[in-house]
């Protein structure tokens, strides 16, 4: 209760300070719109449907790309952790490519796929896949080997060991990796939407870029705020419940 109160007070103070600076008249509204201008834009864009459509388009791309990234990343991470040859080849590749900021994939995607949805998807998958591979790989390798020995004495082998021991043992890492993958997917999609202008769908990134072209700072700030809120909501709804469960079961983490 006190904690949510402190959050509320903090954000209200932030908004008030912003409003105060905006009203002081030092900066033109084109450079610094007031929070009220931004809210006004959000209200109007929600009513005429612009925001809904853009959010929907963006989420569709995000979920598809993120889903593909997980679908390939988790199994690949599992096998790179358990087979030395794959660790030294694919694992090394993932480690290297993972350091590449996802926006760096955009030029390549544009040349390969042109201004298409495929280019967009490619960038998101590339942004997600490698970090998920790394996180899964690290999770499996952090597992105490005694679990495997104990499981073997009880008659577990092959697929049973994978599904009932290795996978659950590395789940906390896996969720950490999925969370990181989500953040990476989100970043890379915004980069892709800003650079790839296409007619098949007008997403949040494009709305942001469009705001810049129109010198509509209220729109720019509003879209940025919405991107932040979606990221925060995803964290709270998709990942926090899992993390809480693991902390309870494993007895890890001191912050409740």
């Amino acid at each position, binding site marked *: 209760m006190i904690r949510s109160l402190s959050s509320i007070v903090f954000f209200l103070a932030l908004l008030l300070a912003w409003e105060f600076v905006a009203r002081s008249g030092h900066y033109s509204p084109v450079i610094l719109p007031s929070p009220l201008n931004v809210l006004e834009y959000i209200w109007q864009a929600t009513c005429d449907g612009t925001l809904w459509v853009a959010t929907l388009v963006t989420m569709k791309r995000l979920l598809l790309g993120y889903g593909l990234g997980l679908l390939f990343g988790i199994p690949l991470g599992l096998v790179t952790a358990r087979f030395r040859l794959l660790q030294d080849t694919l694992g090394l590749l993932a480690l290297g490519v993972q350091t590449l900021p996802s926006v760096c994939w955009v030029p390549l995607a544009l040349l390969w796929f042109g201004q298409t949805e495929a280019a967009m998807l490619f960038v998101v998958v590339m942004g997600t896949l490698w970090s998920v591979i790394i996180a899964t790989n690290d999770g499996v390798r952090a597992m*105490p080997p*005694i*679990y495997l*020995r*104990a*499981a*073997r*004495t*009880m*008659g*577990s082998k092959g697929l*049973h060991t994978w599904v*009932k*021991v290795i996978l*659950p*043992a590395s*789940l906390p890492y896996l969720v950490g990796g999925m969370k990181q993958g989500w953040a990476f997917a989100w970043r890379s999609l915004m980069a892709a939407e800003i650079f790839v202008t296409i007619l098949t769908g007008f997403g949040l990134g494009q709305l942001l870029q469009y705001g810049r072209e129109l010198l509509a700072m209220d729109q720019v700030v509003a879209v940025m705020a919405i991107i932040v809120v979606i990221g925060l909501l995803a964290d709270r709804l998709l990942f926090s419940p899992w993390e809480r469960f693991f902390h*309870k*079961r*494993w*007895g890890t983490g001191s912050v409740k």
Partner: protein
Amino acid sequence: MSIETAITNIAPERIEIDGVTKSFTTNRGTIVALDNVSVKVAEGEFLCLVGPSGCGKSTLLNIIAGLDTPDSGRVLANGESVTGPGRDRMVMFQEHALFPWLDVLGNVMFGLRLKPGLNNKERKEVAKYYLDLVGLSKFLHANIHELSGGMKQRVALARALAPNPRVLLMDEPFAALDALTREQLYGDIQRIWEARRKTILFVTHNVREAACLGDRVLLFSPNPGRIHAEFQVTLPRARDINSVELAHYSTEITAALKGFTNKQGMEVAE
């Protein structure tokens, strides 16, 4: 299979270790963990293996468990060659090795779920029976991290007993516990051994613990790992770790142990 047959006493197993040799190569050279070791373990015997660290006693246990393979020699369990882990030989490790993603009942059920011939309801009954035997029937759904060290080892014991193995291999299972908890568990393990008729091989570096639990104590000397001496402990059960009679045995074993530890400058717990 009914619950009754799943938890009835089955014949304990006879184990023969025949000329087992095993060496490890480290960056400091080759260590001969076991050098042509042969032991016969009788059915239902409680055999303790003592010796300083690095004398190969844990390696021998792992080989009997089927988790490790010898360089030469062989292990026979009830006349059959051991080629891998089997449900007839369950292991209890020094670290409890319980799975943190399962609760207490889930951990005991893990091995039972892999055992054919039982339905899930029966498996649950069996798991509860063993958790009751180790005094944890009130903690079925506790998370592992919520238990004390002693309780964790009790769960590990229940998990090892649940598939009804004929042999129990215990690798310093009480080494990480405090003295009071350990004493309780000495009582428990003797009670369970008498009630469940298992062949038990118990590895420890604690001489007194070995004398308290074993029918027979094998003293190992390290590098190369060999059986240095053998002692019969004929005290009646249940034995108390603090009894004076026990001290005679542990003094005798310690004296033999000092014979070679002094030479090699090694220390050992009494």
